[in-house]
């Protein structure tokens, strides 16, 4: 797949997301303003404000002009205005993004490292009791949906044992600074992070184990063993290292799932990231925020995938195609 083709693919994907985002509220029954802002708000609006909104979205113009309008305002970073939270949607999303980045970033790093180590050890001992135990455990983990994993950790560690706070990212109204603030944030962070890592780790593990099994068949492993290298060196330096590539690229592609997983887990722990924002805007029928957030998340995941696709070749000269 050449670069031009790749860019076209992502371009089409981007366009699909944009058009859906644009069309959905406008195809709904009733005036688009109802779908964009929700019924409750519309009742409270003054006619002047309504008129200004219609002008703002160019709703009195034909559809294609509305679309051009829509694209232009997007490029200005104008995702609309939230009537419920009385603020610009863009600003609201920006305030929530760091928490999600924190969660997704750390969970990706930890689950990848954990999955690789377990995968290498498991593949090395293929068929032995340790391998079977890890494999069964990981397969079982892969069945748990992220939100159920989050709920179980919450109920067990926070409700029953009382070891961790129930919700949020910080103790509300706590007058703490410096190291205590950091500790407080970490304490709130551990359970959501653990839930996400537990959900994510099995995918990476299974892939590493499979590539490890195939790598171990290669002749250079036999050479390494014949040279009399210690087991550990063969396992990590030779076999492990050569099994890494698909795993690393997958981590990038997995980003989409990690973000979705984070969305659900944030909802359970009332963690103030974009997942929670999506949830609260769903409850309030705050459509501008809902749309804006989903659009930003989709674009973000798309961009990350694109980036991974681009560096894919650089990582392994043998790989010319993704498939």
């Amino acid at each position, binding site marked *: 797949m050449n670069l031009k083709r790749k860019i076209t693919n992502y371009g089409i994907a981007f366009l*699909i997301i944009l058009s859906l985002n644009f069309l959905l509220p406008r195809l709904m029954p009733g005036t688009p303003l109802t779908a964009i802002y929700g019924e409750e708000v519309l009742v409270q609006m003054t006619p002047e404000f309504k008129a200004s909104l219609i002008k703002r979205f160019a709703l009195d113009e034909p559809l294609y002009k509305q679309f051009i309008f829509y694209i232009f305002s997007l490029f200005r970073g104008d995702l609309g205005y939230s009537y419920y939270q009385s603020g610009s949607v863009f600003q609201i999303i920006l305030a929530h993004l760091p928490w999600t980045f924190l969660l997704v970033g750390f969970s990706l790093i930890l689950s990848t490292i954990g999955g690789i180590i377990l995968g290498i050890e498991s593949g090395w001992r293929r068929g032995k009791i340790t391998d079977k135990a890890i494999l069964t455990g990981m397969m079982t983990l892969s069945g748990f949906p992220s939100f159920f994993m989050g709920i179980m950790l919450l109920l067990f560690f926070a409700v029953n044992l009382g070891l961790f706070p129930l919700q949020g990212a910080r103790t509300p109204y706590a007058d703490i600074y410096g190291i205590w603030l950091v500790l407080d944030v970490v304490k709130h962070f551990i359970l959501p992070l653990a839930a996400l890592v537990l959900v994510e780790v099995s995918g990476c593990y299974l892939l590493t184990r499979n590539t490890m099994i195939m790598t171990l068949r290669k002749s250079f492993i036999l050479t390494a063993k014949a040279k009399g290298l210690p087991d550990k060196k063969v396992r990590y330096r030779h076999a492990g290292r050569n099994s890494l590539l698909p795993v690393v690229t997958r981590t990038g592609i997995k980003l989409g799932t990690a973000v979705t997983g984070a969305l659900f887990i944030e909802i359970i722990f009332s963690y103030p990231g974009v997942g929670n924002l999506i949830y609260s805007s769903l409850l309030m029928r705050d*459509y501008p925020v809902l749309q804006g957030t989903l659009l930003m998340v989709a674009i973000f995941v798309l961009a990350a995938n694109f980036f991974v696709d681009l560096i894919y070749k650089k990582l392994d000269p043998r790989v010319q195609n993704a498939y």
Partner: protein
Amino acid sequence: MHIKYWEELKKDTFGKIGLVLFLFFIVIVLIAPFITRDPQVQTALVFEAPSLEHLLGTNDVGQDIWSRLVWGARTSLLVAIGVGMLSTFLGALIGASAALIGGWYEEIAMRIIDAFLVIPTVILLILVAAFIRPSIWLLIVLISFLRWQGGARIIRSQTLSLKESVHISAAKSFGASRFYILFRHIIPDLAPILVVSFIYSARMAVFMEAGLAFIGITDPSVVSWGKMMHHALNFYYLDIWKWWLLPAGMALSALILVFAFLGYSLEKIMDPRLRKSNA
């Protein structure tokens, strides 16, 4: 080329567990009307603890939780099988036709497939579902339309290689008709891939339905495990989650596991490098 899938599946531990559990779910769903009462009926007996009368107690509006659990399985299995079949059908139709027809048709199909593959599906689904609030049937269609691309890609490449493979040209040289080749060779050889595609779509669909119901996007007339969990979580401070939330979550995980086990086991059978008997 021709692997005895059924034999291999029965030999594999994960495959065996998956099959048994799957049959168990099917049986439960089929006999649901005989082992439950009306899951929607509300009574004055709220927050009852489990008893012989109510195996898993009752919820906050006096509905029998055991009945809701069993009827939730109906919803999940319906979505799983519906999406599995529809998305596999779409994938097979578009993938195979792209391979067989070729030309600009293939080009357009592949562009659409590749574009959809990089889109974060769940996020798009939440967006669409939030606006149209789909019924259970519409949800099946929606998920299928977001999920056929992976299958289509594999089916296309498989059909391409089958088209050129030796046993097909051998059959051709014996004068086999196009239909004979399609039904006798191409479809049987595609079958395992179709099954794997079915299983993975079904697994994703179960997760998506429950996830959407969990965040409140759901058909109000159906009983759903996701909805049960969401509802039960409001009463986390009572002991009731032990027989309300936990069984629903466990059932959901078990059903997802069924598909995960079956898929993993079949993939292993299809990849001779991972198969032990072949080593």
